[in-house]
């Protein structure tokens, strides 16, 4: 605390005057009181100066904090933006879950049908092995087997394309992961700012030394996945076709 020092010489002079007034029988009570008040005022002045200084510091700190544009950016842009991004995460995870369940719902009957047809054929085959099939039945089984081969080809490719669809649906984990990391960074930044605010309250008597909190900026700022409705400013490709056109224009 570097408050204005008390003027000791002046105070000593006043105190000695008070002592000699007290020693003298001629001094009136009023005179003594006024001398005591005068000495008291040294303390008051000092206190008021300190109080004024503290008030000014608090005021400056708060103004500085308010004027830091990053804070208003956080409140006006980044937090609403983060909400939209999290909504997009919900949409993407929901879509991936539905894709996977859709493929399973479509694929299970296919697998069941193949299994059922195979057991019919197996029963026929066992009869054939026991020589219980008539020539007509044998011809019928031959046709069934052929039909089964054709069908199983078709069904298998259906199932395999379903597997690829499920596989591709898992890309949500990477994209939502990137978005969630961005939101975590934002939460960390808000935390830092809140701590700063608490510090201002607590350390208001000391010189406020909050440096401007600016968004970290790299050489090329990476944006991560584009969120619908939240496309970054500047030229952003809408999809692979745009990218291909751009690369083609560059001679690719």
């Amino acid at each position, binding site marked *: 605390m570097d408050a204005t020092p008390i003027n000791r010489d002046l105070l000593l002079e006043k105190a000695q005057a008070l002592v000699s007034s007290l020693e003298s029988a001629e001094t009136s009570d009023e005179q003594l009181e006024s001398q005591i008040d005068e000495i008291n005022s040294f303390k008051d002045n000092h206190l008021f100066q300190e109080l004024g200084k503290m008030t000014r510091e608090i005021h400056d700190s708060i103004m500085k904090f308010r004027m830091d544009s990053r804070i208003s950016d956080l409140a006006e842009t980044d937090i609403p933006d983060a909400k939209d991004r999290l909504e997009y995460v919900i949409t993407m995870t929901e879509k991936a879950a539905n894709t996977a369940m859709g493929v399973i719902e479509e694929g299970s009957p296919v697998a069941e049908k193949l299994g059922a047809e195979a057991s019919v054929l197996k029963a026929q085959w066992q009869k054939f092995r026991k020589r219980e099939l008539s020539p007509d039945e044998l011809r019928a089984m031959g046709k069934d087997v052929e039909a089964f081969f054709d069908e199983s080809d078709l069904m298998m490719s259906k199932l395999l394309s379903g597997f690829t669809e499920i596989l591709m649906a898992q890309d949500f984990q990477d994209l939502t992961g990137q978005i969630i990391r961005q939101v975590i960074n934002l939460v960390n930044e808000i935390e830092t700012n809140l701590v700063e605010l608490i510090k201002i309250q607590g350390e208001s008597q000391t010189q406020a030394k909050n440096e401007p909190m600016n968004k970290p900026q790299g050489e090329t700022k990476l944006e991560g*996945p584009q969120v619908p409705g939240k496309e970054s400013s*500047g030229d952003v490709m809408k999809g692979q076709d745009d*990218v291909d056109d751009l690369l083609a224009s*560059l001679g*690719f």
Partner: protein
Amino acid sequence: MKILIVDDFSTMRRIIKNLLRDLGFNNTEEADDGNTGLPKLQSGNFDFLVTDWNMPGMTGIDLLRAVRADERLKTLPVLMVTAEAKKEQIVLAAQEGVNGYIVKPFTAQTLKEKIDKIFDRIEG
């Protein structure tokens, strides 16, 4: 054909690995960023690199630069598969010598097309 897949998300590495296997490429290895990927490339006779851009540690663009600056790796075909979709970034990747660029989310068909195109060009 030995392929290195570099992405910080293991799910994405697994997706790409499975898609490559469907395309007939069974010999793949994985790394989670440029810092772990580059030593693998330098010691492992890879024929092809598939890399993400935005990764902690060494990013994909820096990995691409390192590959192009390395005497033994500089001709390695590099396919970038990333969520970064800004024009300036794609132009930058092209300038640094990328052979193909796919934006996430992508389809199995897109991956096949880009890989075919890269190898057609190299062979042709």
